[in-house]
């Protein structure tokens, strides 16, 4: 086994190395956090849609995002049953209204989802099975994942939605995403009682399920063709992507987080660069000696490169575990659905490698000038 010069050099000055490692670790941690929030924003954006069971969604052409859906004529929606491949239709009403926290008497935005209790619009069949519970007037299921500001929302609690009394009969799990801190599911009738501007004839979203084997894209375009100009249809993936795109591109969230990631990468690169440059500077004579002994230039470069990699990876591991811990804390305290996934780990590994590469390449410039003859 060859002498591990890079490893020894990395640890020669223990205090310096630890300080450097901490700096890089924090930078990687920041990247994990920013990317985590970015990812959670993507998840959060489609939290509601993710619960719903559909292959194609029909919406008004004016639909911008969940908070601004627009509506379309119901009878036109019903007509698309005739299209080949359409298996079932389910119109949905969604609206944000003021929910009063009965204890604090403060009002907060609540997302109300109206369903026909006989239908099965959710992917969770258990939830579908509970829908008859809200068939009775002024009953609702509440979201267990709700901010504390909404007060206690367990079964039996009653409060007001837009000044209309509602009683909670049970809970489901969702996390209402960006538009509101909580959500309830009620029957269509209750919904229309609460939101007087809404109309039975004008749903907000039309859920379409298609026959197995049928092409969602094809059916979506057929529906669009048929329902234009009062409505348009999108495949599930397009619909979800649009929603994410809205939140991440239109709202500042996306840019802020991306900039945050950039800042973190730059910070990490600067820290690592500093460390490597200091190392190179200190060991310039040693590198020249290596060349004098008969090592190729590329070997000398590789010593520095390996040192950079050592620092990067040794910083990555604690950063990773710390991030897991922080994710847990944020999930518990802020109810933000921030989770680690393989894709993110891969992305951070990539960014760490870029940081490492840039820092190393820059620091090698100093090394070029080392000439064995300078040893004298």
């Amino acid at each position, binding site marked *: 086994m060859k002498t591990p010069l890079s490893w020894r050099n990395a640890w020669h000055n223990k205090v*310096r190395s630890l*300080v*450097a490692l*901490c*700096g890089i670790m*924090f*930078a990687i*941690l*920041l990247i994990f*956090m*920013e990317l985590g*929030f970015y990812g*959670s*924003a993507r998840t*959060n954006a489609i939290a509601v849609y993710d619960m719903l069971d559909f292959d194609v969604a029909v919406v008004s052409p*004016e639909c*911008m995002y969940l*908070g*601004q859906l627009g509506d379309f004529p119901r009878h036109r929606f019903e007509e698309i049953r005739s299209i080949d491949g359409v298996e079932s239709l389910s119109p949905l009403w969604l609206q944000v209204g*003021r929910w*009063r926290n009965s204890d604090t*008497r*403060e*009002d*907060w*935005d609540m997302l109300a989802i109206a369903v026909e209790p006989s239908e099965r619009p959710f992917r969770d069949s258990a939830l579908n099975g509970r829908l008859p519970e809200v068939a009775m007037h002024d009953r609702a299921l509440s979201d267990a994942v709700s*901010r504390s*500001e909404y007060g206690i929302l367990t079964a039996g609690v009653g409060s007001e939605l837009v000044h209309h009394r509602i009683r909670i009969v049970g809970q489901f799990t969702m996390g209402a995403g960006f538009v509101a*801190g909580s959500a309830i599911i009620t029957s269509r009738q209750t919904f229309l009682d609460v939101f007087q501007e809404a109309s039975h004839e004008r749903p907000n979203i039309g859920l379409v399920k298609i026959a197995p084997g049928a092409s969602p894209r094809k059916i979506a375009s057929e529906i669009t063709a048929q329902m234009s100009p009062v409505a348009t249809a999108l495949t599930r993936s397009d619909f979800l992507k649009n929603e994410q795109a809205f939140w991440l591109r*239109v*709202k*500042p*969230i996306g*840019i*802020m*987080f991306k*900039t*945050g990631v950039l*800042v*973190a990468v*730059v*910070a*990490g690169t*600067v*820290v690592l660069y*500093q*460390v490597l440059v*200091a190392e190179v*500077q*200190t060991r310039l004579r040693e590198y020249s000696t290596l060349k004098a002994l008969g090592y190729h230039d590329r070997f000398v470069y590789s010593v520095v490169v390996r040192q950079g990699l050592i620092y990067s990876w040794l910083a990555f591991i604690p950063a990773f575990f710390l991030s897991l811990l*922080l994710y847990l804390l*944020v999930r518990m*305290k*802020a109810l*933000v659905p921030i989770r680690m996934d393989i894709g993110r780990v891969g992305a951070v590994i990539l960014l760490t490698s870029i940081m490492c590469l840039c820092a190393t390449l820059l620091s090698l410039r100093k090394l070029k000038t080392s000439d064995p003859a300078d040893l004298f």
Partner: protein
Amino acid sequence: MTVINKIPPAAKWLEWTLLPWRNLFHDKRRTSISIAAVAFAIAIMFMELGFLNGLYDSQTGAAAFLRADLIMVSRAWHALTSRETFPRSRLEQLRGVQAVKAVYPIYIEDKFSLFRNSITGTRNNIRVIAFAPGNDIFQDDKMNVLSRALRQPLTVLFDWRSRRLFGPIGAETRTELADRAVTVVGTFDLGADYRYDGNVLVSADTLFQLFPNQNRDAVFLGLIQLHPGYSMTETMHQVNNRVGSDVQVVTKDELIAREKAIWQKTTAAGYIFEMGVAVGFIIGVFIIYQILYIEISDHLPQLATLKAIGNGNGYLMWLVLAQAALLTLLAFIPAVAITSVLYAILTATTGVVTRLTVFRVGVVLILTSSMCIAAGLLAVRRVIMLDPAELF
């Protein structure tokens, strides 16, 4: 004793001030790299602060740009994004109070307020702020003058910092708000935030014309301006005792503080950005510490020589700390320059106004300086423990 003591006082002073400069400027290239790195570190901190402050500034912007000493809101009110209104009579009640100079009701519509993009035709929700034109309800007097133009029915003033989805807006642009034709008669400067993509100002009359769901009696914010010389807090307490239990009166600053707190505690964004600031500062400390450590390491032979000649530890410490402080100051200026540019880019691309105020610059300066000095002190230990014999 030390050689220094034998030097006449004037020269001694020179030694104490000039040597740090000469040390730093001896190797110009190296010093510029150090300065660049420290400037980077400072800019990183500023960026994270920018995200955080951008959030708070933008969310509280609508309140900040209004002129008021006290503000009345519904008791159920908790944020500028909430929809709680209170009866107008409560506000009118206050006209009789001696300290009160004027009261102005402010109405807000954000649900049915679809603004049409004149180019693409798409409609998007915009925040509509309505008031009685001709009154001095804005901090900026120019706006007060401009707002008089809103006396014309169906006219709006458009916030030019709104997000681009509303299309290009100039004076005389005609478009639709809530499906009714309106004319833009001017622009103002407020800024989008994390909830609203844009703002328009209209007269109260126009508001009621456009939005039948609104009515004169459902006031969102009651601006209360006091006569000069009256204490805000005293008047506030006085007034709160008189008004009904369905409203509350707070100072404008407190309203803004509460708004900030809501965003800080109840949203992910607040959390995230605060974390970013914390980590940004930690990284900044590391970078600065590293630079100083390297600088000192390189100057160690020099310092050792000085020690060998007979200078005391005090002088050496001064040299190190002075150099640290100098480095910080020199790095600060380019850092502020870079930050201003970055803030401008951020503001332009997101519509969220990110501001570099003197106060914030001062805060970062103090923090960075203390960091530098702290780092310097840590590094100085090496100098104190230095044994001149090590040179040989």
